[in-house]
């Protein structure tokens, strides 16, 4: 992730504050920063959203295109994720610097949506084995202020909620050749149900306690964090440890309790 230069004294200050449940900006250990979510910000896409979480700014655009379904799953459409860390976020991302982080985030997103219950993929199928909807979800990191995964998952959920997929009919000719007809009314479209789309909660371990929604400075003090993606019903879809340190097993169980309560 983007790193920030912290002196030893600042680190000690942050760590001691966290032990007392007091963070630099006055929050408790389990408080989120104020989130602003805006949908339908980009007009050329089928759906879009912008999320601002403190200094972190994420823009997600979803485009729906028609294509052929995968061979192993002929009755379903699928989602493709692409994450772009632009050089505006931090100077470290200039050139190819942000590619590694981008692939890591994209792989995590693939993992989260890899199960049957998150998004109803069967509704994205137009005709089995031939046509289906492919949703290209493109995430743009505009500004990096800590806690990227949480903000990205909120933005993806909001963008999928905002996505409008036009209704399409497949007509068969007498000779058997198929023709695709798009409905004329631009408002006649199907919307996806995002009830079961999970959100990521990242807990960073600082000293003996864990912290929700860490800023860049707090991330620099923590050696390891646990990332869990949870739906609103409490179903966990993905779990991952991030960072160079190791976690105590007891603290993992404690952290998972906190995740679900968030």
């Amino acid at each position, binding site marked *: 992730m983007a790193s920030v*230069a912290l002196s030893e004294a600042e680190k000690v200050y942050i760590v001691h504050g966290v032990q007392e449940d007091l963070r630099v900006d006055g929050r408790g250990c389990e408080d989120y920063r104020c989130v602003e979510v805006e949908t339908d910000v980009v007009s050329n896409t089928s759906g879009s959203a912008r999320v601002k979480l403190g200094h972190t700014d994420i823009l997600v655009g979803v485009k729906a295109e028609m294509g052929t379904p995968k061979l192993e799953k002929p009755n379903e459409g699928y989602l493709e994720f692409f994450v772009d860390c632009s050089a505006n976020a931090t100077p470290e991302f200039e050139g190819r610097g942000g590619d590694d982080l981008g692939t890591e985030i994209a792989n995590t997103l693939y993992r*989260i949506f890899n199960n049957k219950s998150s998004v109803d993929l069967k509704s994205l199928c137009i005709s089995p084995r031939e046509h289906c909807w492919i949703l290209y979800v493109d995430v743009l990191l505009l500004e990096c202020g800590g806690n990227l995964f949480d903000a990205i998952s909120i933005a993806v959920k909001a963008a999928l909620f905002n996505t409008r997929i036009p209704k399409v009919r497949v007509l068969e000719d007498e000779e058997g050749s198929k023709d695709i007809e798009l409905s004329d009314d631009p408002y006649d479209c199907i919307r996806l149900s995002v009830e079961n789309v999970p959100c990521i909660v990242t807990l960073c371990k600082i000293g003996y306690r864990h912290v929700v929604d860490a800023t860049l400075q707090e991330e620099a003090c923590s050696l390891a964090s646990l990332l869990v993606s949870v739906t609103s019903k409490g179903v966990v879809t993905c*779990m991952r440890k991030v960072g*160079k340190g190791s976690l105590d097993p007891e603290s*993992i169980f404690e952290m998972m309790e906190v995740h*679900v309560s968030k």
Partner: protein
Amino acid sequence: MPGDHRRIRGPEESQPPQLYAADEDEAPVARDSTRLRPVYARAGLLSQAKGSAYLEAGGTKVLCAVSGPRQVEGGERGSGPAGAGGEAPAALRGRLLCDFRRAPFSGRRRRAPPGGGEERELALALQEALEPAVRLGRYPRAQLEVSALLLEDGGSALAAALTAASLALADAGIEMYDLVVGCGLSRAPGPAPIWLLDPTLLEEERAAASLTVALMPVLNQVAGLLGSGEGGPTESWAEAVRLGLEGCQRLYPVLQQCLVRAARRRGTAAPP
């Protein structure tokens, strides 16, 4: 092109015949959910690598090689924050580069070597799990390269690769705090949430959720955790993690014996 007799052109895309085969229902055999498959581990088998290890667990065969420490020109790295504990500051710490590769014939379908996102993700998972164990502060401005090659995938490949990688690092004489032992788990679909330890390929393919845990046994610290799928509530994931940690502890004595044997072998083979 008229009459190109030199090459026979086949179709552009090829698929394995299993796709068109009728669905034979091979149900996975019911078994004790906490059994670990017997493991064969051998360290110090490649002559060209500084350290190497081969691990076989059931049908999963992994070969891992370590090379380094090699000097790296890290000139442009700016002044990073100083590390704790008096070791080299973060800008001068060594780096661990991990590479995970699947042989093209390792799975049911042939996969050409640049395997795309999945191999990068697993390589990152390997790196994140091995970093807490290796004393990188003792290798300033140096780079350690760990490359894992999966010869055959018989289930819980990442766990086997983690174990083989830490054996290879120990065999290379790299300073470590502890070995890293990996264990895979999977949960069958259906209402009863039983987590199976060390799944076979068949169980993994039909799984609704899968999890890989990496533990440092002596220090009792979790070095890595990666899981996904419809796992159900948190309690079932917590139970799965506990089961995985137990499995890792049970595997540890086998690895210790393997390293002792390799050291003895090296002792007798070295010219006096």
